[in-house]
């Protein structure tokens, strides 16, 4: 009964900005697109630490975290979020991201466990479908 209720509830997604990066256009567009697609979106606002982002996801019982970085700090901050997810035993939270990230770095991050990296020019629909598919799968597993 509880399970059935949970699977029809809207997905909950944390859209996050980390470090000192103030470029929030992409994060806000993604947040709106996910909201328009029927999900519940929690936007962290700017300048969050990896610890704060994972705390927010846990408190909000989020199904996914989308992290946006355009400052070049992605190879530091994405792994730190992964570490925090592991430390909090929350690796089932679907962790994805995007920003100004060179292709080689994107591949490296995906190998480390970031589920997908979306770079500029990705259709919103593709991201919405990814979130729905991957976070929806998480719901089933739970």
């Amino acid at each position: 009964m509880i399970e059935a209720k949970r699977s029809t509830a809207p997905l909950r997604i944390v859209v996050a900005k980390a470090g000192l990066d103030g470029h929030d256009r992409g994060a806000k567009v993604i947040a709106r697109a996910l909201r328009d697609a029927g999900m519940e979106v929690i936007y962290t606002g700017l300048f969050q630490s990896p610890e704060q982002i994972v705390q927010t996801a846990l408190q909000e019982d989020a199904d996914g975290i989308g992290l946006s970085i355009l400052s070049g700090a992605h190879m530091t901050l994405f792994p730190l979020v992964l570490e925090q997810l592991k430390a909090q035993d929350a690796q089932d939270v679907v962790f994805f991201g995007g920003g100004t990230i060179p292709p080689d770095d994107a591949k490296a991050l995906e190998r480390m466990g970031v589920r997908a990296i979306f770079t500029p020019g990705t259709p919103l629909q593709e991201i919405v479908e990814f979130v729905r598919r991957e976070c929806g799968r998480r719901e089933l597993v739970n």
Partner: protein
Amino acid sequence: MIERASSEQAWKDASKAGKRRAGTGSGAVDRTISDVPLQTLYGPADLANLDVERDLGYPGFYPYTRGLHPNGYRDRLWTMRQFAGFGTARQTNERYKFLLAQGQTGLSVAFDMPTLMGYDSYAPQARGEVGRCGVAIDSLADMEALFSGIDMGAVTTSMTINGPAAIALAQYVAAAEKQGVSRRVLGGTVQADILKEYIAQKEWIFPPRPHMRLIVDMIAFCTDEMPRWNTISISGYHIREAGSTAAQELAFTLADGFAYVEACVARGMAVDSFAPRLSFFFNSHIDFFEEIAKFRAARRIYARHMRDRYGAKDPRSWQLRFHTQTAGCSATAQQPENNIVRVAYEAMAAVLGGTQSLHTNSMDEVHALPTEKSAEIALRTQQVLAYETNVANVVDPLGGSYFVEALTDEMEREAEAYFAQIAEYGGVIEAIEAGFFQREIADASYRYQRSIETKDRVVVGVNAFERNEEAGDIELLRITAETEAEQAQGVRRVREGRDAAPARAALERLQRACRDPKDNVMPHLIACVNAYCTEGEIVEAMVEVYGRYVERSVF
């Protein structure tokens, strides 16, 4: 078949009979990229209200619609000023020397995020960010290294920094004086436009009101002691990059400019004492004519307000001088070489709009900071424009175009409508606090993104004419983790190597000045810098007085 005589009615009939094209990118032929409606054709009727003397005038004369200089670019080309900075001061110094050797005529400093936000390179907040999107400048020692071997009295420098702008200016003055160059001859600008930080770019430190006080202090200081320095660069660039329309960029930027004018006047400064040194910075996006109209409207609106609303008497106070940068947000990660072409069109719009200086983006900036090669192509793009296309030979060549004049009028009308809305909030700061600008920009950016999704608009290589490519076939600039370690070590060395007592005393005097609204913080900042206080220490001292700003986020 008898050919019909050309007449308005005949054209209307013929136009009506035409079959509009369908398919790829045809969803937006009747509006600009900013959603301004477009007619098929413009003609004399569209200029019925245009008074040539009143609305256009002559180049070099009020209201400056046709430009600031009587001979346009014939006397002097625009300044080719490429924004650059990465890694350590030493690395960036090498790039500057390269660019100057290639014929660049001014310097423009890009700082890294910790510097822009007021943190030293070893601060926990700085991890992963040091030297990544600009150069790390922690103390006077770094500023000295940045300009090592470059005559600061001969070159002009633009520094894109806002929250800690007054500190960067203090470092620049101190570094120049160490070279033996007097502050009175220094030319250049520091961006220092904090209002657009709250609106769009989000690199703030203190809350708006103390930040405004710092800016007025800086303008007052420069007015007295740095007569060749452009005191502030009021910027629409980042507003546009955050997703605004052209008219929003124009309106919000000018509104910010007027807010600074009002703040200086409120301090008791005469408008003509400081207004001639104010400057502006705009984006040049991909919608060619809309951008040209925006630049022309900007000059006209500014001249009218400065003369009639603020009572400026000196014509230099009426003149809106501006720098332009091509639109980073128009560049695509897909088929990055195409960005060279986009940049060329955008640069041409800026020149036809009468810019005073120009930065052309590099093709690879969607992925990383530019390589030396791509930075060179960007500069060459300007040189081809300046020396081969001949577009700079005639002043305001599009003046009188039915379309461009109608669009210029439309830009002015939309800007005035925004000014009225901002006034209803009680001013720019109040509108920021109410989230007005932030909402307007987020709405516009989402509308734009939707139009790409629906393919009403085409972005070549993104939603049409795609190529299945393995991205990553272009060479990219890499900033290594060693940079962070080297920089953090450098700043520690500076702290350990200096006399501690004078540094502490300078910081205390600075705090007292921050608490005293009658004092000016600038001389105290220069004293701190000369005592080798780091940027992070200075900012911390000021945060103790002013606090840090926290945004209420809207999306």
